[in-house]
């Protein structure tokens, strides 16, 4: 009897399953734009400088990807474990996944894809994410073993890098134009400057995609992209400004999502030159900033205040700190450091980043109250990164998001190539290394928080906020995950 009920129940469930499958029919075309940032160097090679990530994210998978909460979750690797000191990581790969050309994904492909990034000759910008991998091996078809040159408890986080996508073994020379991966969509026609057409991959391992076609269209001009969205020529635009938001909000033909990111713009004071070699002066120049006012003035409210931490607001390691403007303390610190009459500072900006001049002017007003006389020097955008940044005592800077550990390493480690503030603190370096060795999550988190608090006391980098991205879609788009680009499950999207 009970067995019969069970059978009925199973039958019912499977009919239900069938129904939902029928409802979720693959149909329609979803259109979005990309900003054509690399012109004719645009490429489908996920690790090339000209990678069009708006395409690669839909056609290729990673080993590990960010879950909706940002934590590492399974993609082409289903599980991972490390040895006791976190120097050897073993990953189990998903079975039965096929590339768009029909070949099966296995450890040889994973080995090859990682190897291309790790090759010192390849000069891929993605290398910095995984350069701790000393050796990668594949003992069998579904296992990958990574041996690191340093203990690294958060190795899975590094593998989430948006560029570390799996391509078929030996396809390095052709991948730039073929774009063969395992993702929910496959390339039908690649034309970066025009319209790239992607077709649904009905064999996708997570199930058939919700839309039949995706078109990714190159539109370099931000205004033109907005017009295209307003006119219904594209369905999604991920770079809506705060001013444009007002226009979309008032219409029921569009939806807006606000997604906090790890991208930041700020000012960097070199810690190796006078007067910023004095930690008191460094703290004073940062205390003089009214961050909420900067957020409102520069981004129209579209940002989250940061207390000079490069760790993004939604990162699991972000330290919760407050940093109100404190003119009295800034003045006191300057006096203590031997500058009772204040200091003169030349801040170098360029229009390379359109918000820099506004940021500098707003800061100029705020800092003046503390006796910090800011003189804004506008320099040409050409040669900014080679002649001004890391050369002049004070300049504007900008960084795109990185995992907490990577951000702290790339911006503040004394030996880092892009240690823009020439920050040199052996205690910080040592603490940072210990975090990578710590396998216990809570303890590791405590260390990262301590590191950020240390930066608030001592750093030479003013990080006033992290930019919030506004994503506009037409009302016909459904099931777009309200998360960062990087974690969106593109196969879920539907259009009416």
């Amino acid at each position, binding site marked *: 009897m009970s067995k019969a009920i069970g059978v009925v129940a199973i039958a019912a469930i499977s009919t239900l399953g069938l129904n939902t499958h029928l409802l979720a029919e693959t149909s329609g075309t979803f259109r979005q734009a990309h900003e*054509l*940032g*690399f*012109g*004719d*160097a*645009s490429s489908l090679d996920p690790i090339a400088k*000209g990678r069009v990530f708006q395409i690669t994210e839909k056609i290729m998978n990673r080993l590990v990807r960010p879950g909706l909460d940002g934590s590492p979750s399974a993609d082409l690797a289903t599980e991972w474990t490390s040895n006791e000191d976190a120097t050897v990581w073993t990953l189990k790969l998903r079975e039965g996944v096929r590339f768009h050309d029909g070949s099966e994904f296995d450890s040889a492909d994973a080995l090859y894809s990682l190897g291309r990034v790790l090759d010192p000759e390849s*000069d891929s*910008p993605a290398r910095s994410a995984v350069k701790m991998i000393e050796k990668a091996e594949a003992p069998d078809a579904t296992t990958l073993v990574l041996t690191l040159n340093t203990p690294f408890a958060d190795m899975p986080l590094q593998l989430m890098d948006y560029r570390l996508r799996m391509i078929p073994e030996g396809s390095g020379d052709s991948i730039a134009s073929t774009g063969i991966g395992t993702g929910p969509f496959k390339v039908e026609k690649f*034309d970066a*400057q*025009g*319209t790239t057409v992607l077709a649904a991959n009905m064999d996708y391992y997570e199930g058939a995609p919700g839309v039949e076609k995706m078109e990714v*269209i*190159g*539109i*370099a*001009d931000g*205004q*033109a*992209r907005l*017009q*295209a969205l*307003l*006119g*219904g*020529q594209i369905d999604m635009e991920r770079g809506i400004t705060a001013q444009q938001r007002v226009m979309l909000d008032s219409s029921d033909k569009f939806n807006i999502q606000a997604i906090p990111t790890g991208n930041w713009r700020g000012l960097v004071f070199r810690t190796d030159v006078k007067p910023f070699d004095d930690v008191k002066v460094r703290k004073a120049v940062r205390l003089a900033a009214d961050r909420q006012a900067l957020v409102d003035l520069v981004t129209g409210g579209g940002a989250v205040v940061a207390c000079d931490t490069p760790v993004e607001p939604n990162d699991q390691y972000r330290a919760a700190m407050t940093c109100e403007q404190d003119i009295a303390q800034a003045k006191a610190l300057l006096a203590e450091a031997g500058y009772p009459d204040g200091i003169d500072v030349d801040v170098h900006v360029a229009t390379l980043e359109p918000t820099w001049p506004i940021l500098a002017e707003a800061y100029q007003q705020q800092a003046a109250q503390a006796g910090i006389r800011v003189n804004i020097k506008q320099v*040409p*955008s*050409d*040669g900014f*990164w*080679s*002649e001004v*940044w890391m050369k002049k005592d004070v300049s504007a800077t900008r960084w795109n998001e990185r995992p907490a550990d990577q951000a702290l390493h790339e911006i503040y480690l004394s030996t880092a190539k*892009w240690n823009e503030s020439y920050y040199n603190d052996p205690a910080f370096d040592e603490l940072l290394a210990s975090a990578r060795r710590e396998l216990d999550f809570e303890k590791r988190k405590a260390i990262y928080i301590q590191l950020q608090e240390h930066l608030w006391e001592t750093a030479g980098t003013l990080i006033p906020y992290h930019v919030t991205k506004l994503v506009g879609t037409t009302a016909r788009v459904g099931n777009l995950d309200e998360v960062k680009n990087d974690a969106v499950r593109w196969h879920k999207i539907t259009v009416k």
Partner: protein
Amino acid sequence: MLRMLARRVLLGIVTVFLVSLIIFSGVEILPGDACTAYLEREAQGKLLENCRTELGLDRSASARYLDWASGAVRGDLGVSATGRKSIATLVGDRLKNTLLLAACALVVGIPLALFLGVVSALNRDRPADLIISTLTIFAMTIPEFVTATLLILVFSVWLGWVPGIVLTSAGAPVSEFFPEILLPIAVLAMVMTAHILRTVRSSVIETMASDYVQMAVLKGVPYWQMVFRHVLPNALLPTINVVALTVAWLLGGVVVIETVFNYPGLGRMMIDSISDRDLPVTQAIALIIATVYVAVNLLADLLTMLANPRLRTAQIRH
């Protein structure tokens, strides 16, 4: 006549040569070079060295100029910094698209300008003239990007009659650009019509007031015969130069229109190359636009001379 032709052509070539010198030294004076511009933060060590060798930046400025200039004469504009592709190939499609846009705007704009110009001149100070002249002032003084945005708003966003933004790729056949190209044509034709129209109007008014027309009127020549046989041939001569200037402006000045509408032409390519910091491409396009400008003006001068016996003979007497 032939000698004068040769002289004008030679002068044109000298102008282009001088322009090329200015463009090249302009780029030279910029801080950094094509490689530091393209590589941004990564401009150091081996990557920078490789890039410089590949683009030949390790040689002296004069050697590079000679190379660039002699290449340009042969139609070889070098390779782009971002994609390492032949600039001549990249420019090809874009030039075709800009020419398509310009040609369509001319086909619509010139007849319209001539017609409206003559109509408003013959109806001087009457309602038709007042309306046309007022609209002309609007078309001339409102910046193109405002007109463009307004047209997109009305015809694409509100009415939904035509697509607002051009999504067709640069290499697509001409037929695929319709109907997306309609709005850019409308904006260009508007501005162009306004400029030509004003010249036509004042020129026709001037001719109508001249002695020989008065004489014709007194002798009883029928009105329309007088207009078509005696006024227009003389009045339209000065407009050749305005049309030429407008054509030159069309080819170089469509930058704004192409950017607003995302039209894959030479102008947008210039803007893209500037934001990509691709100096070789910027340099090449600047040279192309300058050459076209000089060539079109030269052509217009020659046409005016051919059409006007007085200018022709005056030159010969020298």
